[in-house]
Protein backbone atom coordinates (compact mmCIF):
# COMPACT_ATOMS: atom_id res chain seq x y z
CA UNK A 1 0.00 0.00 0.00
CA UNK A 2 3.05 2.23 0.21
CA UNK A 3 3.90 1.59 -3.44
CA UNK A 4 5.35 4.65 -5.12
CA UNK A 5 3.54 4.11 -8.42
CA UNK A 6 -0.27 4.26 -8.47
CA UNK A 7 -2.03 0.99 -7.83
CA UNK A 8 -3.96 -0.49 -10.69
CA UNK A 9 -7.63 -1.32 -10.19
CA UNK A 10 -6.98 -4.93 -9.18
CA UNK A 11 -4.29 -4.05 -6.69
CA UNK A 12 -6.52 -1.32 -5.28
CA UNK A 13 -9.37 -3.78 -4.82
CA UNK A 14 -7.07 -6.19 -3.02
CA UNK A 15 -5.66 -3.49 -0.79
CA UNK A 16 -9.15 -2.27 0.09
CA UNK A 17 -10.38 -5.78 0.82
CA UNK A 18 -7.41 -6.33 3.13
CA UNK A 19 -8.82 -3.62 5.41
CA UNK A 20 -11.79 -5.91 6.06
CA UNK A 21 -9.53 -7.93 8.36
CA UNK A 22 -9.47 -6.43 11.85
CA UNK A 23 -7.71 -7.28 15.08
CA UNK A 24 -8.62 -10.56 16.73
CA UNK A 25 -10.28 -12.19 13.75
CA UNK A 26 -9.95 -15.79 12.56
CA UNK A 27 -10.07 -15.56 8.78
CA UNK A 28 -10.18 -17.94 5.83
CA UNK A 29 -9.07 -16.45 2.52
CA UNK A 30 -10.39 -18.34 -0.50
CA UNK A 31 -8.16 -19.71 -3.22
CA UNK A 32 -7.15 -17.20 -5.88
CA UNK A 33 -7.67 -13.46 -5.49
CA UNK A 34 -8.63 -13.45 -1.79
CA UNK A 35 -5.30 -15.04 -0.86
CA UNK A 36 -3.56 -11.98 -2.26
CA UNK A 37 -4.76 -9.78 0.61
CA UNK A 38 -2.09 -11.42 2.80
CA UNK A 39 0.50 -9.15 1.21
CA UNK A 40 -1.48 -6.07 2.29
CA UNK A 41 -1.89 -6.87 5.99
CA UNK A 42 0.07 -4.78 8.51
CA UNK A 43 2.81 -6.85 10.12
CA UNK A 44 1.52 -6.10 13.62
CA UNK A 45 -2.16 -6.87 12.94
CA UNK A 46 -3.21 -9.69 15.28
CA UNK A 47 -5.27 -11.91 13.01
CA UNK A 48 -5.29 -15.68 12.66
CA UNK A 49 -5.41 -17.03 9.13
CA UNK A 50 -6.98 -20.45 8.67
CA UNK A 51 -6.65 -22.81 5.75
CA UNK A 52 -9.08 -25.68 5.41
CA UNK A 53 -6.47 -28.37 4.80
CA UNK A 54 -5.51 -28.03 8.45
CA UNK A 55 -3.60 -25.03 9.74
CA UNK A 56 -4.11 -21.83 11.71
CA UNK A 57 -1.48 -19.11 11.79
CA UNK A 58 -0.43 -19.06 8.15
CA UNK A 59 2.83 -17.25 7.55
CA UNK A 60 4.61 -16.14 4.41
CA UNK A 61 4.35 -18.05 1.16
CA UNK A 62 7.72 -19.64 0.38
CA UNK A 63 9.59 -20.01 -2.90
CA UNK A 64 10.11 -23.62 -4.06
CA UNK A 65 13.72 -23.60 -2.87
CA UNK A 66 12.74 -23.01 0.72
CA UNK A 67 9.40 -24.85 0.74
CA UNK A 68 8.45 -27.67 3.13
CA UNK A 69 6.92 -30.45 0.99
CA UNK A 70 4.42 -31.20 3.77
CA UNK A 71 3.21 -27.66 4.33
CA UNK A 72 0.73 -26.20 1.88
CA UNK A 73 -2.44 -24.16 2.02
CA UNK A 74 -5.71 -25.34 0.49
CA UNK A 75 -4.72 -23.77 -2.80
CA UNK A 76 -1.47 -25.71 -2.93
CA UNK A 77 0.81 -22.77 -2.17
CA UNK A 78 3.82 -23.57 -0.01
CA UNK A 79 3.34 -21.62 3.19
CA UNK A 80 5.26 -21.27 6.44
CA UNK A 81 4.34 -21.31 10.10
CA UNK A 82 4.52 -18.34 12.45
CA UNK A 83 4.98 -18.46 16.23
CA UNK A 84 1.68 -19.87 17.47
CA UNK A 85 0.71 -21.84 14.37
CA UNK A 86 -1.15 -25.13 14.78
CA UNK A 87 -1.70 -28.11 12.48
CA UNK A 88 -4.80 -30.31 12.67
CA UNK A 89 -6.79 -32.82 10.65
CA UNK A 90 -9.59 -32.06 8.20
CA UNK A 91 -12.34 -32.83 10.71
CA UNK A 92 -11.00 -30.32 13.23
CA UNK A 93 -10.41 -27.83 10.43
CA UNK A 94 -14.06 -27.80 9.40
CA UNK A 95 -15.25 -28.10 13.00
CA UNK A 96 -13.72 -24.67 13.41
CA UNK A 97 -15.61 -23.41 10.35
CA UNK A 98 -18.99 -24.93 11.16
CA UNK A 99 -19.02 -24.19 14.90
CA UNK A 100 -18.81 -20.43 14.48
CA UNK A 101 -15.11 -19.87 15.17
CA UNK A 102 -14.42 -18.45 11.72
CA UNK A 103 -15.07 -14.71 11.93
CA UNK A 104 -14.64 -13.98 8.26
CA UNK A 105 -14.26 -15.71 4.95
CA UNK A 106 -13.43 -13.92 1.74
CA UNK A 107 -14.42 -15.87 -1.35
CA UNK A 108 -14.35 -15.56 -5.10
CA UNK A 109 -17.64 -15.63 -7.03
CA UNK A 110 -19.17 -16.46 -10.37
CA UNK A 111 -22.39 -14.71 -9.34
CA UNK A 112 -23.76 -12.87 -6.29
CA UNK A 113 -27.47 -12.13 -6.00
CA UNK A 114 -28.96 -9.05 -4.39
CA UNK A 115 -30.29 -11.23 -1.54
CA UNK A 116 -26.80 -12.50 -0.75
CA UNK A 117 -26.98 -15.80 -2.60
CA UNK A 118 -23.58 -16.95 -3.83
CA UNK A 119 -22.64 -19.17 -6.77
CA UNK A 120 -18.96 -19.99 -7.03
CA UNK A 121 -18.40 -23.68 -7.58
CA UNK A 122 -20.12 -25.04 -10.65
CA UNK A 123 -20.98 -24.07 -14.22
CA UNK A 124 -23.12 -26.95 -15.46
CA UNK A 125 -21.68 -28.55 -18.56
CA UNK A 126 -18.48 -26.53 -18.34
CA UNK A 127 -16.90 -26.61 -14.90
CA UNK A 128 -17.92 -29.21 -12.33
CA UNK A 129 -14.86 -30.05 -10.28
CA UNK A 130 -16.72 -30.36 -6.93
CA UNK A 131 -17.31 -27.78 -4.25
CA UNK A 132 -14.36 -28.58 -2.00
CA UNK A 133 -14.79 -26.56 1.19
CA UNK A 134 -16.68 -23.66 -0.37
CA UNK A 135 -20.15 -24.64 0.81
CA UNK A 136 -19.16 -24.85 4.46
CA UNK A 137 -17.11 -21.66 4.35
CA UNK A 138 -19.97 -19.75 2.71
CA UNK A 139 -22.66 -21.28 4.88
CA UNK A 140 -20.95 -21.05 8.28
CA UNK A 141 -18.41 -18.22 8.49
CA UNK A 142 -19.77 -15.46 10.72
CA UNK A 143 -19.25 -12.97 7.93
CA UNK A 144 -18.96 -13.79 4.25
CA UNK A 145 -17.48 -11.27 1.85
CA UNK A 146 -16.71 -11.69 -1.81
CA UNK A 147 -13.86 -10.35 -3.88
CA UNK A 148 -14.40 -10.47 -7.63
CA UNK A 149 -14.11 -8.47 -10.79
CA UNK A 150 -17.33 -6.52 -11.19
CA UNK A 151 -18.05 -8.17 -14.56
CA UNK A 152 -16.91 -11.38 -16.24
CA UNK A 153 -14.41 -11.46 -19.09
CA UNK A 154 -17.21 -10.78 -21.58
CA UNK A 155 -18.33 -7.72 -19.64
CA UNK A 156 -21.44 -9.40 -18.22
CA UNK A 157 -22.40 -8.39 -14.68
CA UNK A 158 -21.65 -10.85 -11.87
CA UNK A 159 -23.87 -9.00 -9.38
CA UNK A 160 -27.39 -10.07 -10.28
CA UNK A 161 -31.01 -9.99 -9.21
CA UNK A 162 -30.91 -13.78 -8.98
CA UNK A 163 -28.15 -16.33 -9.44
CA UNK A 164 -28.48 -18.51 -12.52
CA UNK A 165 -25.80 -21.04 -11.49
CA UNK A 166 -26.03 -23.72 -8.79
CA UNK A 167 -25.76 -22.06 -5.39
CA UNK A 168 -22.94 -22.38 -2.92
CA UNK A 169 -25.02 -20.87 -0.12
CA UNK A 170 -28.20 -18.89 0.30
CA UNK A 171 -28.33 -15.29 1.60
CA UNK A 172 -24.87 -15.37 3.13
CA UNK A 173 -22.85 -12.67 1.32
CA UNK A 174 -22.62 -9.46 3.34
CA UNK A 175 -20.26 -7.37 1.21
CA UNK A 176 -18.60 -7.43 -2.20
CA UNK A 177 -15.23 -5.96 -3.13
CA UNK A 178 -14.78 -5.37 -6.85
CA UNK A 179 -12.43 -3.47 -9.10
CA UNK A 180 -15.12 -0.76 -9.32
CA UNK A 181 -16.69 -0.52 -5.89
CA UNK A 182 -17.42 -1.82 -2.42
CA UNK A 183 -21.05 -2.90 -2.27
CA UNK A 184 -23.04 -4.11 0.72
CA UNK A 185 -25.86 -6.62 0.52
CA UNK A 186 -28.70 -5.09 2.52
CA UNK A 187 -32.27 -6.10 3.23
CA UNK A 188 -33.19 -3.84 0.30
CA UNK A 189 -30.56 -5.13 -2.11
CA UNK A 190 -27.16 -3.95 -3.26
CA UNK A 191 -25.99 -0.67 -1.74
CA UNK A 192 -22.99 1.29 -2.96
CA UNK A 193 -20.51 1.95 -0.12
CA UNK A 194 -17.29 3.04 -1.79
CA UNK A 195 -16.04 3.78 -5.30
CA UNK A 196 -12.70 2.87 -6.80
CA UNK A 197 -10.60 5.88 -7.66
CA UNK A 198 -11.67 7.31 -11.01
CA UNK A 199 -14.89 5.27 -11.23
CA UNK A 200 -18.29 6.98 -11.40
CA UNK A 201 -21.56 5.94 -9.83
CA UNK A 202 -23.02 5.55 -13.29
CA UNK A 203 -20.26 3.15 -14.34
CA UNK A 204 -20.97 0.96 -11.32
CA UNK A 205 -24.72 1.08 -11.88
CA UNK A 206 -24.32 0.07 -15.50
CA UNK A 207 -21.98 -2.80 -14.65
CA UNK A 208 -24.36 -4.17 -12.01
CA UNK A 209 -27.12 -6.57 -13.02
CA UNK A 210 -29.52 -5.52 -10.28
CA UNK A 211 -30.79 -2.25 -8.81
CA UNK A 212 -28.07 -0.38 -6.92
CA UNK A 213 -28.95 1.74 -3.92
CA UNK A 214 -26.82 4.89 -3.99
CA UNK A 215 -26.79 6.83 -0.73
CA UNK A 216 -27.34 10.60 -0.76
CA UNK A 217 -24.14 11.24 1.11
CA UNK A 218 -20.62 11.52 -0.26
CA UNK A 219 -19.28 8.18 -1.44
CA UNK A 220 -15.76 7.50 -0.19
CA UNK A 221 -13.20 6.32 -2.68
CA UNK A 222 -10.47 3.68 -2.37
Amino acid at each position, binding site marked *: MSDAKPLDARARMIARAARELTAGMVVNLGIGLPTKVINHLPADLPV*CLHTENGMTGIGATLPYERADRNLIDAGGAYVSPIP*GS*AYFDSAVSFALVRSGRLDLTMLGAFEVAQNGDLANWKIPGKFSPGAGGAIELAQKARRVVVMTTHTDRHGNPKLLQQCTLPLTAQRRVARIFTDLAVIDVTAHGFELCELATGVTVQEVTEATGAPLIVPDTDIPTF
Partner: protein
Amino acid sequence: MSLPDKTTTIEAAVARIPDGATIMVGGFGVPGTPFTLIRELVRQGQKDLTLIKNDANETGMGIDLLIANGQVKTLISTHIGLNANAISALNSGRIRVEFCAQGILAERIRAGGAGLAAIVTDIGLGTELAEGKQVVEMNGKRLLVENALRADVALIHADRADPFGNLTYAATARNFNPLMAMAAKMVIAEVETLGPLGSLSPEAVETPGAFVDHVAELFEISEDYGIVRR
Protein backbone atom coordinates in the same frame (compact mmCIF):
# COMPACT_ATOMS: atom_id res chain seq x y z
CA MET B 1 1.13 -11.08 11.09
CA SER B 2 0.89 -11.87 14.77
CA LEU B 3 -1.74 -13.74 16.78
CA PRO B 4 -4.13 -12.21 19.33
CA ASP B 5 -3.25 -12.38 23.05
CA LYS B 6 -6.00 -13.96 25.14
CA THR B 7 -4.31 -14.14 28.52
CA THR B 8 -6.29 -13.11 31.56
CA THR B 9 -6.71 -14.05 35.23
CA ILE B 10 -8.81 -16.82 36.74
CA GLU B 11 -10.97 -14.18 38.49
CA ALA B 12 -11.63 -12.09 35.40
CA ALA B 13 -12.38 -15.11 33.25
CA VAL B 14 -14.87 -16.62 35.69
CA ALA B 15 -16.51 -13.20 36.21
CA ARG B 16 -17.72 -13.46 32.61
CA ILE B 17 -19.94 -16.42 33.50
CA PRO B 18 -23.58 -15.41 34.13
CA ASP B 19 -26.16 -17.06 36.37
CA GLY B 20 -28.03 -19.77 34.54
CA ALA B 21 -25.12 -20.67 32.29
CA THR B 22 -24.62 -24.10 30.80
CA ILE B 23 -21.04 -25.05 31.56
CA MET B 24 -18.94 -27.91 30.25
CA VAL B 25 -16.26 -28.98 32.71
CA GLY B 26 -13.31 -31.08 31.57
CA GLY B 27 -11.84 -34.01 33.46
CA PHE B 28 -12.29 -37.71 34.14
CA GLY B 29 -11.71 -38.13 37.85
CA VAL B 30 -8.92 -35.85 38.96
CA PRO B 31 -6.87 -35.62 35.76
CA GLY B 32 -8.03 -32.78 33.58
CA THR B 33 -10.50 -31.31 36.06
CA PRO B 34 -10.11 -27.49 36.19
CA PHE B 35 -10.17 -27.31 39.98
CA THR B 36 -9.02 -23.70 40.21
CA LEU B 37 -11.68 -22.40 37.85
CA ILE B 38 -14.26 -24.42 39.77
CA ARG B 39 -13.14 -22.99 43.15
CA GLU B 40 -13.38 -19.49 41.73
CA LEU B 41 -16.88 -20.25 40.45
CA VAL B 42 -17.78 -21.36 43.96
CA ARG B 43 -16.31 -18.14 45.37
CA GLN B 44 -18.21 -15.95 42.89
CA GLY B 45 -21.39 -17.93 43.44
CA GLN B 46 -23.10 -17.99 40.03
CA LYS B 47 -26.45 -19.81 40.38
CA ASP B 48 -28.77 -22.12 38.45
CA LEU B 49 -25.96 -23.70 36.52
CA THR B 50 -26.27 -26.65 34.18
CA LEU B 51 -23.06 -28.65 34.25
CA ILE B 52 -21.90 -31.12 31.63
CA LYS B 53 -19.14 -33.33 32.98
CA ASN B 54 -18.13 -36.97 32.68
CA ASP B 55 -18.40 -37.56 36.42
CA ALA B 56 -19.26 -35.67 39.60
CA ASN B 57 -15.71 -35.86 40.98
CA GLU B 58 -15.51 -37.17 44.55
CA THR B 59 -17.06 -35.76 47.68
CA GLY B 60 -15.44 -32.46 48.61
CA MET B 61 -13.64 -32.10 45.30
CA GLY B 62 -14.24 -30.34 42.00
CA ILE B 63 -17.84 -29.92 40.95
CA ASP B 64 -19.00 -31.50 44.19
CA LEU B 65 -18.25 -28.09 45.72
CA LEU B 66 -20.67 -26.46 43.28
CA ILE B 67 -23.34 -29.05 44.03
CA ALA B 68 -22.84 -28.71 47.79
CA ASN B 69 -23.03 -24.92 47.45
CA GLY B 70 -26.43 -25.14 45.74
CA GLN B 71 -25.22 -23.64 42.48
CA VAL B 72 -26.16 -26.58 40.26
CA LYS B 73 -29.62 -27.14 38.84
CA THR B 74 -28.87 -29.87 36.30
CA LEU B 75 -25.97 -32.22 35.71
CA ILE B 76 -25.45 -34.07 32.45
CA SER B 77 -23.05 -36.90 33.19
CA THR B 78 -22.11 -40.52 32.63
CA HIS B 79 -21.35 -41.79 36.12
CA ILE B 80 -21.54 -40.22 39.57
CA GLY B 81 -20.85 -43.34 41.60
CA LEU B 82 -17.74 -41.99 43.34
CA ASN B 83 -19.62 -39.04 44.84
CA ALA B 84 -22.12 -39.98 47.56
CA ASN B 85 -23.11 -36.31 47.94
CA ALA B 86 -24.07 -36.09 44.31
CA ILE B 87 -26.10 -39.29 44.52
CA SER B 88 -27.96 -38.00 47.55
CA ALA B 89 -28.54 -34.62 45.84
CA LEU B 90 -29.99 -36.59 42.94
CA ASN B 91 -32.12 -38.82 45.15
CA SER B 92 -33.47 -35.88 47.17
CA GLY B 93 -34.27 -33.92 44.01
CA ARG B 94 -31.86 -31.09 44.79
CA ILE B 95 -30.28 -31.59 41.39
CA ARG B 96 -31.55 -33.14 38.22
CA VAL B 97 -29.19 -35.59 36.53
CA GLU B 98 -29.33 -36.66 32.88
CA PHE B 99 -27.25 -39.77 32.31
CA CYS B 100 -25.64 -40.51 28.99
CA ALA B 101 -23.42 -43.36 27.81
CA GLN B 102 -19.84 -42.17 28.18
CA GLY B 103 -18.71 -42.35 24.58
CA ILE B 104 -22.00 -40.92 23.38
CA LEU B 105 -21.56 -37.97 25.74
CA ALA B 106 -18.13 -37.48 24.20
CA GLU B 107 -19.57 -37.66 20.69
CA ARG B 108 -22.48 -35.32 21.46
CA ILE B 109 -20.03 -32.74 22.77
CA ARG B 110 -17.73 -33.27 19.81
CA ALA B 111 -20.70 -32.93 17.44
CA GLY B 112 -21.50 -29.60 19.09
CA GLY B 113 -17.91 -28.56 18.61
CA ALA B 114 -18.03 -29.67 14.98
CA GLY B 115 -21.14 -27.63 14.24
CA LEU B 116 -23.27 -30.72 13.62
CA ALA B 117 -26.87 -30.99 14.76
CA ALA B 118 -26.76 -34.59 15.94
CA ILE B 119 -25.24 -38.02 15.60
CA VAL B 120 -27.08 -41.22 14.74
CA THR B 121 -26.15 -44.36 16.67
CA ASP B 122 -27.35 -47.76 17.81
CA ILE B 123 -25.78 -47.35 21.23
CA GLY B 124 -28.36 -47.82 23.96
CA LEU B 125 -30.93 -49.61 21.78
CA GLY B 126 -32.63 -52.23 23.90
CA THR B 127 -31.78 -50.41 27.13
CA GLU B 128 -33.62 -47.78 29.12
CA LEU B 129 -31.17 -45.14 27.86
CA ALA B 130 -33.03 -45.29 24.55
CA GLU B 131 -36.36 -44.33 26.11
CA GLY B 132 -37.90 -41.15 24.80
CA LYS B 133 -35.18 -40.54 22.24
CA GLN B 134 -35.85 -39.52 18.66
CA VAL B 135 -35.61 -42.45 16.26
CA VAL B 136 -34.62 -42.41 12.60
CA GLU B 137 -34.78 -45.31 10.19
CA MET B 138 -31.78 -46.00 7.95
CA ASN B 139 -31.61 -48.98 5.62
CA GLY B 140 -34.49 -50.58 7.49
CA LYS B 141 -32.79 -50.24 10.89
CA ARG B 142 -34.15 -48.08 13.67
CA LEU B 143 -31.44 -45.87 15.17
CA LEU B 144 -31.26 -43.18 17.81
CA VAL B 145 -30.74 -39.50 17.06
CA GLU B 146 -28.54 -38.05 19.80
CA ASN B 147 -28.53 -34.28 19.61
CA ALA B 148 -25.30 -32.33 19.74
CA LEU B 149 -24.40 -30.55 22.97
CA ARG B 150 -23.07 -27.02 23.10
CA ALA B 151 -22.52 -24.85 26.16
CA ASP B 152 -22.26 -21.20 27.05
CA VAL B 153 -18.93 -21.84 28.72
CA ALA B 154 -16.30 -24.57 28.75
CA LEU B 155 -13.86 -24.80 31.66
CA ILE B 156 -10.71 -26.52 30.49
CA HIS B 157 -7.58 -27.70 32.26
CA ALA B 158 -4.53 -27.78 30.01
CA ASP B 159 -0.90 -28.64 30.61
CA ARG B 160 0.81 -26.08 28.38
CA ALA B 161 -0.49 -23.12 26.42
CA ASP B 162 0.58 -20.04 24.53
CA PRO B 163 -1.12 -16.62 24.69
CA PHE B 164 -3.23 -17.35 21.60
CA GLY B 165 -4.80 -20.29 23.43
CA ASN B 166 -3.10 -23.20 21.71
CA LEU B 167 -3.31 -26.02 24.26
CA THR B 168 -1.68 -29.34 25.08
CA TYR B 169 -2.74 -31.87 27.70
CA ALA B 170 -0.88 -34.29 29.96
CA ALA B 171 -1.42 -38.08 29.74
CA THR B 172 -5.00 -39.05 30.62
CA ALA B 173 -5.81 -35.47 31.57
CA ARG B 174 -7.01 -35.10 27.95
CA ASN B 175 -10.28 -37.02 28.25
CA PHE B 176 -13.13 -34.56 27.63
CA ASN B 177 -11.01 -31.38 27.53
CA PRO B 178 -10.15 -31.24 23.82
CA LEU B 179 -13.80 -31.97 22.95
CA MET B 180 -15.31 -29.38 25.28
CA ALA B 181 -12.72 -26.82 24.15
CA MET B 182 -14.45 -26.89 20.74
CA ALA B 183 -18.05 -26.88 21.92
CA ALA B 184 -18.73 -23.69 23.88
CA LYS B 185 -19.40 -20.08 23.03
CA MET B 186 -16.79 -19.02 25.59
CA VAL B 187 -13.86 -21.32 26.26
CA ILE B 188 -11.76 -20.62 29.35
CA ALA B 189 -8.57 -22.60 29.84
CA GLU B 190 -6.57 -22.75 33.06
CA VAL B 191 -3.05 -23.84 32.17
CA GLU B 192 -0.19 -25.24 34.20
CA THR B 193 2.49 -23.61 32.04
CA LEU B 194 2.02 -20.58 29.82
CA GLY B 195 4.84 -20.01 27.36
CA PRO B 196 5.33 -17.39 24.67
CA LEU B 197 4.01 -17.75 21.12
CA GLY B 198 6.22 -20.32 19.46
CA SER B 199 6.83 -22.30 22.65
CA LEU B 200 4.55 -25.06 21.35
CA SER B 201 5.42 -26.87 18.17
CA PRO B 202 2.52 -26.53 15.68
CA GLU B 203 2.44 -30.34 15.56
CA ALA B 204 2.14 -30.67 19.35
CA VAL B 205 -0.92 -28.43 19.64
CA GLU B 206 -3.98 -30.47 20.54
CA THR B 207 -6.55 -27.69 20.81
CA PRO B 208 -5.94 -24.91 18.27
CA GLY B 209 -6.15 -21.49 19.87
CA ALA B 210 -8.85 -20.43 17.41
CA PHE B 211 -11.32 -22.34 19.61
CA VAL B 212 -10.18 -20.72 22.86
CA ASP B 213 -11.27 -17.34 24.25
CA HIS B 214 -9.42 -16.89 27.55
CA VAL B 215 -6.20 -18.35 28.92
CA ALA B 216 -5.33 -18.07 32.61
CA GLU B 217 -2.07 -19.37 33.99
CA LEU B 218 -2.10 -21.31 37.27
CA PHE B 219 0.60 -19.94 39.49
CA GLU B 220 0.05 -22.73 41.99
CA ILE B 221 -0.92 -26.34 41.48
CA SER B 222 -3.10 -26.90 44.53
CA GLU B 223 -3.60 -30.15 46.43
CA ASP B 224 -6.78 -30.72 44.42
CA TYR B 225 -4.64 -31.81 41.51
CA GLY B 226 -2.58 -34.26 43.52
CA ILE B 227 -2.59 -37.98 44.08
CA VAL B 228 -5.76 -39.28 45.74
CA ARG B 229 -5.00 -41.86 48.41
CA ARG B 230 -8.08 -44.03 48.78
